[in-house]
């Protein structure tokens, strides 16, 4: 607690979760307390983690790293990663103001501990199998390049083979400029893969999380069978700075938030992080039928996971330890 008083002026949002903080230089590795960027509340970081990185006071959804997301979403130990060995290349020998792209890749991989900005694999949610593709915003702003396209296309093709639905968790700063037209073409490649998924009558659920822009918004992520978003997430095609510069207009209040795109008819639901497992479970059961030996997890549909837990006396033993945001 002594530490707390000495450092309170320096507290930054969670070092791993939220990269929106403007004070990124002040990384305090042993953060015990985290200041909510929305309501300013000082939160005990353990408690915030137990709450799925959602502020218990104002429901601000902190950004999650891809693996944190998978931990929160999938049944414990159910995630099996696919194609982790697919590595980015530098086909253009791209050099920008900061140096060559291939060097940037090596640095980013070392810094993030990830090989690329999209992680794919199979998982179970309340026992229901599905293919998962989760973006990691910390890896070059979750920009979509060749690896993203290849891993996602393979994941969707496997989903077709295994006849399982696909859940994508989409954050992105846009197409990766360092791979030039290869990146743009990943919009075509991923959309083509999801077209096949649809031809095979398998559903795609897309969850848009903060922030989701550019080529990802303009391809597979916005033409899913069910469109979901996290509260407060910024979602758009063009970035706000670009729009301001081009139009020289002041952007309306709440522009491009999840609430804004819901109001404008682009998504089906805004889902609190704590409810996500239950929503995906119910959706999966609607499209693929109830798996044998499993009861419906959430008879009340879109209620919170906490409520659903009360409604169903026994959760799958597997998932009890995984937890979702709202269960702590």
């Amino acid at each position, binding site marked *: 607690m002594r530490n707390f008083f000495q450092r309170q002026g320096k507290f930054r949002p969670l070092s791993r979760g939220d990269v929106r903080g403007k004070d990124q230089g002040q990384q305090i590795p042993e953060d015990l307390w985290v200041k909510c960027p929305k309501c300013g509340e000082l939160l005990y970081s353990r408690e915030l983690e137990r709450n799925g990185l959602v502020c218990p006071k104002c429901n601000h959804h902190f950004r999650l790293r891809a693996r944190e997301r998978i931990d929160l979403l999938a049944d414990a130990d159910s995630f099996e990663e696919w194609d982790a060995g697919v590595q980015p290349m530098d086909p253009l020998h791209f050099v920008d*103001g900061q140096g060559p792209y291939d060097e940037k890749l090596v640095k980013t991989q070392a810094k993030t501990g990830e090989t690329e900005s999209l992680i794919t694999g199979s998982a179970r949610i309340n026992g229901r199998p599905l293919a998962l593709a989760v973006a990691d915003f910390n890896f070059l702003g979750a920009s979509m390049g060749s690896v993203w396209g290849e891993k996602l296309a393979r994941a969707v093709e496997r989903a077709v083979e295994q006849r399982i639905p696909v859940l994508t968790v989409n954050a992105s700063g846009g197409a990766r400029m360092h791979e030039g037209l290869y990146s743009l073409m990943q919009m075509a490649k991923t959309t083509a893969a999801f077209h096949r998924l649809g031809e095979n009558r398998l559903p795609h659920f897309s969850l848009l999380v903060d922030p989701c822009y550019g080529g990802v918004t303009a391809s597979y992520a916005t033409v899913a069978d069910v469109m979901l978003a996290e509260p407060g997430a910024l979602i758009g095609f063009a970035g706000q700075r670009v729009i301001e510069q081009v139009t020289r207009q002041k952007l309306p209040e709440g522009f491009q938030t999840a609430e804004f795109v819901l109001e404008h008819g682009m998504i089906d639901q805004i889902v609190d992080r704590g409810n996500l497992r239950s929503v995906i479970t119910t959706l999966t059961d609607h499209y693929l039928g109830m798996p044998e030996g499993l009861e419906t997890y959430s008879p009340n549909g879109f209620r919170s996971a906490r409520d659903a837990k009360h409604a169903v006396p026994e959760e799958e033993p597997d998932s009890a330890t995984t937890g979702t945001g709202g269960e702590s």
Partner: protein
Amino acid sequence: MTDTHQDQDTAQAIEGTEPTAPLTAMDRVRLARDPQRPATLDYIGELCTNFIELRGDRTFGDDAAMIGGLATFRGRSVVVLGHQGGTNTRENIERNFGMPRPEGFRKARRLMQHAQKFGLPIITFVDTSGADPGIGSEERGQGTAIAECLMQMIGTRVPIVCTVIGEGGSGGALSISLGDRLLMLENAVYAVASPEACAAILWKDASKAAEAAETMRVTAADLDRFGMIDELIPEPVPANEAPRDTIHTVGDRIEAHLDALYESFDPDDPEAMAALLNQRYDKYRKIGAWSETGEVEP
């Protein structure tokens, strides 16, 4: 005009040199944007007869930056689609400088469905700096409109031949380029972002656009080398100086590719239809540059 470039195969271009002299990427960008360069309506006017423009997205409005309709092209009825900017200020405002809004993409999607319904092949002319980045476009779902266009195009059950005739700018260009053939004029460019936008983001300096254009590999020759286009159509004289010749050369190539596609395509044969769609899938499925380490899964 006096930027330095790293590539050996590019050289400083001097105004007025022979057209065969190597041009820098930024020179090509400037040529691609030249207001005298023929645009979609010029191609339709010169190559097609019986053009009936079909307008409107049936939901919100009509977007003059994306035009389309029915036409007779070399003896075939086709659906033609293309971006269209303006040649003067008034027309540019009317056509939003050739940057489609969601209505434009929804019109394009509607016309693709129309072509499919009546079994008409589609030819498209790509020429836009990109999709409109405006408040209204965001409100009406710009991203979704482009995505719906891509989703429609990849599964459209008729042959599609696309040609980049000027500037191929990002998602706005891709929206009508997902065909069975992608042709590109020698002095056209096709890029994930405009060189200016790329420079502003990665150099924090829009004046580095020439460097960005070079390293982004936006020219037809680059994309041909990467196997991303099916044919580079030479411009012995730049299109802005020889518009009519260029247009007819493009027309010949489109016709040749349509003929080739129809050799094996029969709208009444389910196998031929499946083959067309599978080839289109494979065409985009294989694009990417990545390596693989460790155990490769089956």
